[in-house]
C-alpha cells in the first residue's frame, strides 16, 4: 500500500501520474487505473472502480427472488449463465428444491458453452491488448456460434436469464443438441489452430513468459480464484472442490500451471476451453430424459429465515451468492461475491515495478469484466 511507495525524494527520480481510463483501450470497460510512473516503470498502479456501479445488491433487497433473477445475467455479462446458476442455486438450497437431472445437465452444458464463449472473448481481447487484432475476430466467429446456440434456446444472446428457480426456462430442442455437437466438432480443430497461430507464437511467448508473476500465496491473501489461482499452481476449482449441480458426474480436469506468470494464466484458459468441450460432449451423451423444472415450485416463494450460500465456478473464478432471508417474499440481503474484484485487487501489488506494456499484459491476463467488479 502507500507505505511501500517510493517517493521521488527517496529515489531521486521524478514520477508522474498516468491515468489509464476510465476510457482507455486497455481497460475493456470503465475501469480507471491511476498509475504512478517512473518513465515506463510502474511505481504504483491503483485501480479506481465504481464507474458502472449499479448497486445490484440493493436491487436484490427490493424485489422478489424471481424478479432479481434477470439481474444476475447482468453482473458478469460474459458468463451470465454461471452467475444465474449461483443465485438460483442459493435459492434452491434454501427452499429445498430438487432440480430434475435433465435440468441440471442442461445447466452444466449451457454453463460450459458460456464459459467457452467467455474465454473466447477474453482471448480475443487479450490479444488485442497485446496488439494482435486478427485473433479477436476469429474468436468472435466461434463465439457467434455459441451465441446462436444459446439464443436458440433462451431467446437472448447475452443476458440469458435461462435458469429458473427450480429448473430451466424451457427445455432444449433437437436443433440445440445437434448444433452443439457440431460446434464441439468444429471447435476442436479451431483450438488447434489457435495454438499454432497464437500460443506457440514466439512474440506472444516472449511477451508472456515470466511476465507478471503471481504467487499462490498472493492469490490466497487476496482471494483470487479461477484461472488466476490455477495459473499459480493451485488446483482450486469450485466444480472440483465443492461439486455443485451435476459436475460430480463429469470427467474433466481443472488445468493447473505452476509458473504463475501471464503465460500460465493464458494456458489455463486455453486448456479450460478444451475441458469444457469434453464436459459438453459428456453432457450430451448422458443427457437424461425427463422434466427440466422441479415440481411444486411455489408461485410466491418465501425462503425460511436464515442465510444461505452457494458458490459456482464462473469463467473468472469463484462466484458466490449469500442470501440472508428474514422469511419474507423479498430477500433481506443479497451478497454477490465477484471473482473479478478479488482478482483485480492483487494488481496493485503484482504490477509494482513492471513496465507499462507488461503491466497491461498482466491486467489482461486477469480477465476483468468491469460490471462484475462494480456490480
Amino acid at each position, binding site marked *: 500500500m502507500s507505505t511501500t511507495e517510493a517517493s521521488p525524494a527517496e529515489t531521486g527520480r521524478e514520477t508522474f501520474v498516468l491515468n489509464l481510463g476510465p476510457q482507455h483501450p486497455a481497460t475493456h470497460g470503465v475501469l480507471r487505473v491511476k498509475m504512478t510512473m517512473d518513465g515506463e516503470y510502474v511505481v504504483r498502479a491503483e485501480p479506481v472502480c465504481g464507474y458502472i456501479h449499479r448497486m445490484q445488491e440493493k436491487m436484490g433487497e427490493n424485489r422478489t427472488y424471481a424478479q432479481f433473477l*434477470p439481474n444476475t445475467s447482468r453482473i458478469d455479462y460474459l458468463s451470465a449463465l454461471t452467475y444465474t446458476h449461483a443465485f438460483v442455486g442459493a435459492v434452491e438450497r434454501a427452499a429445498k428444491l430438487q432440480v430434475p437431472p435433465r435440468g441440471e445437465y442442461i445447466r452444466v452444458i449451457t454453463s460450459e458453452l458460456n464459459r467457452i464463449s467467455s474465454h473466447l472473448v477474453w482471448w480475443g481481447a487479450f490479444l488485442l491488448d497485446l496488439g494482435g487484432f486478427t485473433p479477436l475476430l476469429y474468436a468472435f466467429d466461434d463465439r457467434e456460434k455459441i451465441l446462436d446456440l444459446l439464443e436458440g434456446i*433462451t*431467446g*437472448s444472446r447475452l*443476458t440469458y436469464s435461462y435458469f429458473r428457480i427450480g429448473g430451466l426456462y424451457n427445455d432444449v430442442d433437437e436443433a440445440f443438441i445437434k448444433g452443439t455437437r457440431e460446434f464441439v466438432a468444429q471447435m476442436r480443430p479451431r483450438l488447434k*489452430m489457435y495454438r*499454432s497461430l497464437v500460443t*506457440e507464437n514466439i512474440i506472444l511467448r516472449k511477451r508472456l513468459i515470466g511476465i507478471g508473476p503471481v504467487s499462490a500465496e498472493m492469490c490466497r491473501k487476496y482471494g483470487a480464484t479461477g484461472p488466476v489461482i490455477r495459473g499459480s499452481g493451485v488446483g482450486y476449482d469450485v466444480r472440483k472442490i465443492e461439486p455443485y449441480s451435476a459436475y460430480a458426474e463429469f470427467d474433466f480436469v481443472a488445468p493447473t500451471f505452476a509458473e504463475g506468470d501471464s503465460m500460465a494464466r493464458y494456458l489455463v484458459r486455453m486448456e479450460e476451453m478444451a475441458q469444457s468441450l469434453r464436459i459438453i460432449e459428456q453432457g450430451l451423451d448422458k443427457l437424461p430424459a425427463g422434466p427440466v423444472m422441479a415440481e411444486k415450485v411455489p408461485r410466491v416463494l418465501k425462503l425460511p429465515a436464515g442465510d444461505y450460500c452457494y458458490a459456482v465456478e464462473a469463467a473468472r473464478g469463484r462466484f458466490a451468492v449469500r442470501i440472508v432471508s428474514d422469511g419474507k417474499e423479498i430477500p433481506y440481503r443479497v451478497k454477490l461475491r465477484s471473482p473479478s474484484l478479488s482478482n483485480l485487487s492483487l494488481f496493485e501489488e503484482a504490477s509494482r515495478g513492471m513496465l507499462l506494456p507488461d503491466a497491461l499484459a498482466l491486467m489482461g491476463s486477469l480477465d476483468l469484466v468491469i460490471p462484475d467488479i462494480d456490480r
Partner: protein
Amino acid sequence: MKNGLKEIFTGFNSLVTGMRITIGQFFKPSVTTQYPHETLPIPARFRGHIELVLDPETGKAKCYACKLCERACPSDCILVDGAKLEGAKKKSVTEYRLDFTKCSLCGSCVEACRDGAIRFSRDYNLAGFSKEEFIMDLFAKLEAEAQAAGAPPAAPDAPGKPEPAAPAPTQPPPPAAAAPKPEPPKMEPAKVDAP
C-alpha cells in the same frame, strides 16, 4: 548457444506457421452477414419486447387484464388496465402500456401469463428520437393491427386459419427484404404512475 539457436529456429518457424494460417484464412469466404442488406433468421424463441396476442375467434385481445404480468415485472414497466364490458364474463383489456425504456427483456411477463395473451414480438430494429416513443401503447397497436387485418369477423370456419397480422412466434421470420418494418404508431406519452 545451442538453446539460443534452437529458439531462433522454433521462433522463426512459429512466425511462418502463423503467416501460413492467416493466408489460409485470407482465401476462405467471409463469415459475416452484411446487415442491413441481409439479415439473419430470428430464432423462434427470440425475446423481443412484448405484444398482445389477438384472439382469432373474437378479433379482440386475448388479455383479460389479470395483471399477473404487471406484478411479475421486475422493473415496473407494464401498466395494464381492464374493464368488464356489458354482457361479458371476463374483464377485457382497455389499456396496456409497456415502458420499454425500463424493460430489460427478461421475459418474466410472458412466463407469468397463463393464457398466452402476450408474446414476444419480432421487432428488433428499435430506434427513435425521443424517450416517449418507447412508451408503447400495446393495446392501440393491437387494435391497429386488427384494423389492418380487416377486422376479421368471428369466423366460424376458421379453425386452421393462419394468423393474419404477425407470424406466430414459432414460424420462421419473413424474408428481410419482403417486410419493411411498419412505422410505429404515434403514441402519446403514457401516464405511467411509475414511482
